[in-house]
């Protein structure tokens, strides 16, 4: 026990000017525990009331497997779409001046503010068979509402602000001299984009992508209206959990939730790790005089 204490002391001994490293670290750990870990721990504990056989049955039924697949794939696809178009939007908002720019900038945040159920109803109205876009799509044999594509549309909608808002400040801070230096050296626009701008905003792109993905995984309100919630077809994991709860199958609900949680954590941690590698810079202490 004593050696653990000294190890922690060693780890937390930072000679800095600002006091309170231990205090703030302690607070951080406490806060994360209360707000994040405690409910998650309760979830895991609750699912442990099931026997292994019960747990396995609850999490690996065909309905659950179909729901995992839809949730993860649709979220991934939505986040990828946001990665492309969100960074494009951020680019346009930082690089160009045009009338109505402030309005466009403000619009980006709306998916944050809108109750997601309202977004779901609006999207359904637009994409349903008689809706204003849906009617043309259906005429061409494309089904969006009440189909997996609708799930992707809803998840793209709710995740958009994350990519824009993480990439925008980095683009704003990017020194224009970098692009000019590349141009003087003979680099054309595409090369500048690929070799100068993309590496500089890569960490921001990754964290925007991760946030958008995470948001999509947890999204419920907007999806339930547009997806139609057909088991095995358009049922997402959060909805399946809710259905289980409605059937008083709390154990089954928590078991699925635990799987969802583990999957999300692994994916987000992976994205974060890629970001860390991409951002890895030599320590400042190695700077030579």
């Amino acid at each position, binding site marked *: 026990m004593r050696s653990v204490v000294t190890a922690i002391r060693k780890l937390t001994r930072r000679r800095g000017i600002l006091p309170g490293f231990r205090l703030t670290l302690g607070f951080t750990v406490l806060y994360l525990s209360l707000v994040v870990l405690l409910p998650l721990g309760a979830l895991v504990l609750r699912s442990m009331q099931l026997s292994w056989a019960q747990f396995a049955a609850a999490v690996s039924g065909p309905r659950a497997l179909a729901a995992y697949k839809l949730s993860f794939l649709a979220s991934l696809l939505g986040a990828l779409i946001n990665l492309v178009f969100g960074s494009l939007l951020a680019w346009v908002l930082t690089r160009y001046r045009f009338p109505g720019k402030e309005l466009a900038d403000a619009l980006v945040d709306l998916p944050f503010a809108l109750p997601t159920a309202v977004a779901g109803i609006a999207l359904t109205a637009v994409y349903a068979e008689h809706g204003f876009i849906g009617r043309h799509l259906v005429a061409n044999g494309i089904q969006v509402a009440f189909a997996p594509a609708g799930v992707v549309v809803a998840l793209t909608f709710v995740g958009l602000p994350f990519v824009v808002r993480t990439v925008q400040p980095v683009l704003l801070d990017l*020194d224009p*001299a*970098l692009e*000019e*230096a*590349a*141009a*003087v*050296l*003979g*680099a*054309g626009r595409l*090369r500048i984009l690929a*070799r*100068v701008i993309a*590496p*500089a905003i890569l960490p921001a792109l990754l964290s925007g992508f991760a946030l958008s993905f995470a948001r999509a995984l947890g999204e419920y309100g907007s999806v339930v209206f547009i997806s139609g919630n057909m088991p095995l077809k358009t049922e997402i994991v959060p909805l399946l959990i809710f259905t289980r709860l409605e059937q008083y199958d709390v154990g089954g609900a928590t078991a699925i939730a635990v799987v969802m949680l583990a999957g999300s954590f692994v994916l987000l941690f992976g994205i974060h790790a890629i970001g860390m590698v991409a951002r890895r*810079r*030599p320590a*400042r202490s*190695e*700077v*030579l*005089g």
Partner: protein
Amino acid sequence: MSVRVERLSKQFAGAAAVSEVSFAAPSGAITTLLGPSGSGKTTLLRLIAGLEVPDAGRVFLDGRECTRVPVQKREVGFVFQGHALFEHLTVHENVAFGLRVRRLPAREVGERVDELLELVQLRDHGRRQPAQLSGGQRQRVAFARALATRPRVLLLDEPFGALDARVRIELRAWLRRLHEKTQLTTVLVTHDQEEALELSEHVVVVHEGRVEQSGTPLEIYDHPASRFVASFVGEANVLHGHIRDGRASVGPHTLSAPAGVREGATVHAFVRPHDVQIARANGVAAPLAGAVVEELSRVGGSVKVALRLNSGERLTIRMAKGGFDGLRLACGDRVQVELKGAKIFVEEGIGI
């Protein structure tokens, strides 16, 4: 390889940054664009590089017009004030950037980069990241990167502006040696007159978007063409007076004035701090060209003496420590002042 611009003009948001500027930078020399901040000198350099498109006028590199040639094709090297290195690339890759754009074979790229890192004395630093280097080293990498593609002209935008004073002076000497080796036509933008006078063979003084004067450093220093140049280049005291009998009368001093000036016109005499000789006013209660010592400060080997002339005007002079010790001056002492040289500017327009 020479640089020449003709009647170049550029406006930003309706304000003229550069207006009708013409000058030529001789081949193989360092030419300095010297001016205070906001004078348009950086815009001028960017126009030469092709980073800005002029509203009017023409740019010639080596006698060939390239006003409309895009920046990628101008074959110029450019060093920015804040080094602008690609932080995600190693030093080696930064220098190789322009060579890779030109799709040179890998071996040639490697050899050229090594050659340049040797030239900027950073041979062992190729595998470092720019963040691991000091400010001066980073700027040297920026030089190597700009030189790698064998540019026809080297354009430097306040290359030492972001560095501290000691490093700046070191790099100044380093740039001189580098230029002796490369003999590359260079245009340097700076607001630091010391840098301009020390580094360049040719100085163009820029003020409010126009060329005030161009010439060798000595010409600019000894024969300033305007009041702005006289006050901006080198230290100068300004004394005021009038034209009397065709000569400039400044307090008790009479100085020669340009011919054909109007009697009574206002005169501004620019006196360099070392163009004044003083002697103790022994015995004389109120010497004709007298002054009182107001302030003394020793800066290294020289002494700065602030005088209040009998006319009430202030005059700051600089003298060697040896001469100063001989005078045994103290604050409040009366001295006799003799102006050994002054540059006279006669104000046009209404005199008294």
